[in-house]
């Protein structure tokens, strides 16, 4: 199977195809994690994106039953230098080729993935066409030019109806923009009684279960598209402890009056250092975002910046100066990535039990 990657600036990379024979259009991004391809591909936040893996050997340990971050592969395509057809791990039930085939996702390998990364680094995340169906470059170009990339997947990728995941601890309303399984696992681990709400839920609906706290999940797309959610959350700011992650953080920022912007190529990987002002220490974080909160935009909103990215000084977290409301840009639930920041879930639990963010 021949394969092709066409970038909107006209650059073409030729390689081999794997997975499902298909042509898709999406936003080309790169991820620098060395492990966790299965978690990444099933992370709903990658909806609409085609992932260029910088680590050259993808698929080494196969696919397991326990490491899906949702029920399907959300990424629109996967690009690797080499993929492994004979994986090795006692938990493996499938290889990546077969898995992508079964889930109807196209893959591309024998690509100079470092060149692709450097391209994105220089020119920013861009529109691209991935195909392993032997289409011509001209066809790819045409398709690329004719396609529009949707930016509102956070409205559609999450649950369609309310789901109750019972527990004996604090009751949490979770507003689902495309939640990762491990976020729910972290809440379950702390015995939370979880109600998972669909995107278009109103403030009233979110309160209807008498929650102790509101959790805003990760999710794909441009946070500016999520106007409905922004408006509903604004109504809840003074009512209930809130914790947001990634998209949840960006939506929360808008709810308090802040703004977001699109980064050149975002942060995707598991190795960025983030300084936590509250502890005075730094942690290594799991990251996956293409948008960020404008630092100045939240200065007079009652929010203060709590976390800063050590590389580019972007906002990685904030908390309200008086309300039990906080959020982070990175992923304390990890999966994949380091677990350094799982204490933030404990912080949320403390808030729901009446504690405060201010010692």
């Amino acid at each position: 199977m021949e394969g092709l990657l066409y970038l909107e600036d006209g650059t073409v990379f030729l390689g081999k195809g794997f997975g499902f024979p298909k042509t898709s259009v999406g936003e080309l991004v790169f991820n620098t994690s060395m492990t966790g391809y299965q978690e990444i591909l099933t992370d709903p936040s990658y909806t609409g994106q085609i992932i260029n893996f910088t680590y050259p050997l993808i698929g080494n340990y196969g696919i397991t039953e326990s490491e899906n971050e949702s029920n399907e592969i959300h990424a629109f395509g996967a690009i690797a230098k080499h993929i492994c057809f004979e994986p090795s791990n006692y938990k493996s039930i499938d290889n990546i080729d077969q898995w992508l085939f079964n889930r109807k996702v196209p893959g591309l390998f024998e690509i100079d993935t470092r060149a692709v990364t450097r391209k994105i680094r220089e020119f920013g995340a861009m529109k691209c066409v991935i195909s392993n169906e032997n289409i011509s470059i001209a066809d790819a170009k045409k398709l690329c030019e004719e396609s529009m990339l949707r930016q509102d997947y956070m409205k559609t990728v999450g649950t369609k109806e309310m789901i109750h995941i019972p527990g004996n601890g604090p009751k949490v309303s979770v507003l689902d923009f495309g939640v990762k399984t491990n976020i729910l696992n972290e809440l379950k681990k702390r015995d939370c009684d979880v109600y998972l709400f669909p995107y278009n839920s109103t403030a009233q609906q979110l309160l209807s279960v008498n929650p102790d706290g509101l959790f805003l999940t990760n999710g794909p797309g441009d946070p500016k598209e999520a106007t409905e959610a922004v408006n509903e959350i604004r109504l809840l700011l003074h009512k209930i402890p809130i914790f947001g992650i990634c998209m949840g953080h960006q939506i929360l920022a808008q709810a308090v009056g802040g703004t977001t912007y699109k980064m050149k190529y975002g942060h995707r990987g598991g190795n960025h250092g983030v300084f936590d002002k509250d502890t005075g220490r730094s942690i290594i974080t799991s990251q996956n975002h293409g948008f960020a909160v404008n630092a100045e935009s939240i200065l007079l909103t009652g929010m203060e910046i709590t976390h800063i990215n050590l590389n580019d000084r972007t906002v990685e977290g904030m908390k309200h100066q008086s309300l039990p409301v906080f959020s982070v840009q990175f992923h304390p639930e990890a999966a994949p990535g380091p677990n350094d920041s799982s204490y933030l879930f404990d912080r949320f639990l403390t808030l729901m039990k009446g504690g405060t963010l201010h010692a």
Partner: protein
Amino acid sequence: MPKNPNLKKIIILGSGPIVIGQAAEFDYSGTQACKAIREEGIETVLVNSNPATIMTDPGIADKVYLEPLKAEFLEKIIEKEQPDGILAGFGGQTALNLAMDLADRGTLKKYNVSLLGVNQQSIQKAEDRDAFKQLMLEIDEPIPPSIIATSLEECEAFAEEVGYPLIIRPAYTLGGTGGGFAKNKEELILQCQIGMENSSIGQILLEKSVAGWKEIEYEVMRDAKDNCIIICNMENFDPVGVHTGDSIVVAPSQTLRDTEYQMLRNASLKIIRSLKIEGGCNIQFALDPKSSRYIVIEVNPRVSRSSALASKAAGYPIAKIAAKIALGYSLDELKNYVTGDTSACFEPALDYCVVKFPTWPFDKFQTASRKLGTQMKATGEVMAISNSFENALLKALTSFDNKNDGLRIPWIQELSSEELWNKLSIPNDQRIYVLAEALRRNITINDLHEKTQIDPWFLNGLKRITDMEQNLATSPLTPKLMLEAEAMGFTDQEIKDLSKVHRSAMQDIRIYNDIFPVYKMVDTCSGEFECRTPYYYSCFDKEDESRISNQKKVLVIGSGPIRIGQGIEFDYCCVHGIWALQKAGYEAIMINNNPETVSTDFDTSDKLYFESLHMDDVMNVIKKERPEGVIVQFGGQTSLNLAQRLAERSIHILGTNYTSIDLAEDREKFSQLLAELNIPTPKGFAITTMQEAFTAVKQLEYPLVVRPSYVIGGRAMQVVYNDLELEKYLKEAVSLSTEHPVLIDRYIQGKEIEVDAIADGDDILIPGIMEHIEKTGVHSGDSISVYPPYTLSEKVINTLTNYTKKIAKALNVNGLINIQYACDGEEIYVIEVNPRASRTVPILSKVTGIPMVQLAVNVMLGDKLKNMGFGTGLAVNQTLHAVKVPVFSSEKLTDMDVALGPEMKSTGEVLGLDSEFSHAVYKGFVASGVLIPTKGNLYISLRDSEKTQSSIDLLKKYCKCGFSIFGSKGTVEYLNQNKIQASLLPEEDVLWGIQNKNIHLVVNVPEHMNDPESQAFHIRRKATDYRVPVLTCMDTAKAFLLAIQIEQQKKETTSIKVKALEEYLQ
């Protein structure tokens, strides 16, 4: 936290001589630490006894003490220097132990010096078996269940509880004697009995074995604020059971899921936090391949060989950052020096695969077992980087010069299936080739995994390589196939051999289809950020990142892995070569494959190619960079051996050209040249058949020196005394062929002298002459040598200077030359000429203050010695005495013969420096780690040729010093005849006496070596194992007596002074 303002002066401890398990990596980390501290404006005082290192150079630290790494010497240095802190985490186990000693003696307290980076408690917790176990239990980290037992009942009960396999380790034995492995009750009873018998207190440690589990390592860093990061993790190709230093290692881990990776990462952070280490630390885990269960195997609370590897693999300068942390900085205040402006508080992301491959000294030690286990045996290692495991592995394999081009070794391919299968049972240095052959014979991955426990992922990688071999052998060589083979790492030679396509045809395919590698950058961040370190590796891909500048450039070819005979001294020369080129305004480009060295540090050269030193790879870099010239004389025999092929390809070799190199190395041409110059040389012949050998013997006289031509460190060199020995040698030790003749020379008995010089065509400069303590017959690398000469007459020195000048001129030497001479009392003979840097260059540079490599580079670039300000001819002697003492790794290689001979055996060296000769000798012995007895029982056994008046005289002195003499039958008879009181001691009693500290010194000059059956071999080995000094030359015994006398007086006087190198040279 900013740096601690109270730190004004810091002592940095080096690691001393190179031994197995402690090699060049500590020169690399120590040098980085010195630079990192010095740039903060803090005064640095370095102490290291190893003169071959870069760190002991003036300019790296403010003051350098080439003194023994022993507490009593350190105490004097501390008293003199009054430092604020000591950095002990950069000099391996040696420095840690020394720091503990200083703490225990109260020295640190007395002088109010703090241990920086790692404190006494942490060291204790990590190093003490019990304390470590206790700590792991406290923080709930799993360790293998173990008990200390003194009865079989306890052992059986324990086995019942935890199951098999079990490891048995006797308490208080040396070198692991009596240890074993039990897979069932029968083996357990047997092994426990042996173990208890071997233990001096009848005690054994019984531990549940995790042999066969995956071995995974994490390199962790922590600062005083408790920020922790992982620099890199690594997975061993060989499962638990083979020492990680002897394992093939890949980075990052390949078969761990993210969950497993993070589980071990979390454990690593927990451990480094509990130990409160401020700096770097290495943690080893065993991971059950079938359940994700793990145990903690070991923690090294310091930078290590693994951290050097991790630094090079990830591009993250661990030692530099660890040094900054020790000063008080926190990780999030520091920059990533590689990208230039992102934070140092991050975890490197690799976008390539790294393979480390060890190199072992088995070719030199015919009696040593090639079996690999828990005791490390490798002397060095190479690292290779590429975008696939297969390519990185093949690159690593082709990094060893004079070895194979791939995974095919003829004699392994000829093994029967049964032999092959049996060979897989025990891990050894050749296992990878055996595995490949097994795959060629269609043994399944599954069967091989069952047999070896090596992860199928790695075996599949090997399979892809053997499949490619098959493909090349059976399919036509299309451009596509050739590209695939090259991308996998097949060398031109290998492709040619397999496909039977002519080299010229291959070259056509290559050029027409543009099949050349591209170079990618090692940047710590997988391309996420722009980077400024020019550190590259090759692979076959689309985009080339190496930007070629318009500057004048020179390529320096490195020396590859550390081997016996080619050690760190050549890295010293390469690094100085780089610096000199930079000073001269050139862009200096380095190519090398050794991750332990300073030459492969990210900021040493202007551009670093981390590549195999195979001709193909070197040529690819040359093609890419098109340098004005290539320097081959600094990288030892490794780079020099490339000279011919470079010359054939019209590559400009800077300095001495290939014609001259060949002239110096070609026996016959060179003898002829010496004859023309009227310089004597031992008569000799190059022979290619047995017949020729015996014809040659008729014209010479026994004893004879025999050796193969073109050798490193006198490999397979021997002195033979009769026809029988000669025949044995020619049959067993070498393979005779017209391409590789064997050299037979008359053996000149006498003094051996070593001269190093720089030559520019008109003049030469000899910074100094070194005289050996041992007579000819002992390899120059293994003999004690002395600067300045201590017995040579002015006439002899004039002759040496003259000869050296004549030879350099006749050979048209441009740059460095090393000549070994022998003097039998009347004549001076040339034994060997090396038109390159030598082992003695760093020593002479240091003790004379003449920057030899820099001058050599200037000469190569066209400058003349007379303009350089250091004069010409023989330089005036400095008013100091320097005594180089070799150091052996005989404790690690448990079945090697320790007797000295023409074959080099030492792995490292130390230097004793003092204004008094006897003190310099004393310091040299102390630094080498030999225990110097002051009285007691001396056991002696001499070969007949040593039963001489001078031996009698020496032994009389030993008696006078208070030693009682015991000996073997012949020797005792001889001594008694000569009025020396000596008693006969049978072998059994000697062995018992050694083991029970009743014999304090063994002097054994053997008739034959390398005969493990002989009585003398047993005695030498036993003494080595129990750290009783063994001297195998009377000359060494004579020098040792000087040390003994000083040690005896030392109690009363404290006359031994410590001085920084700079003070000697004033």
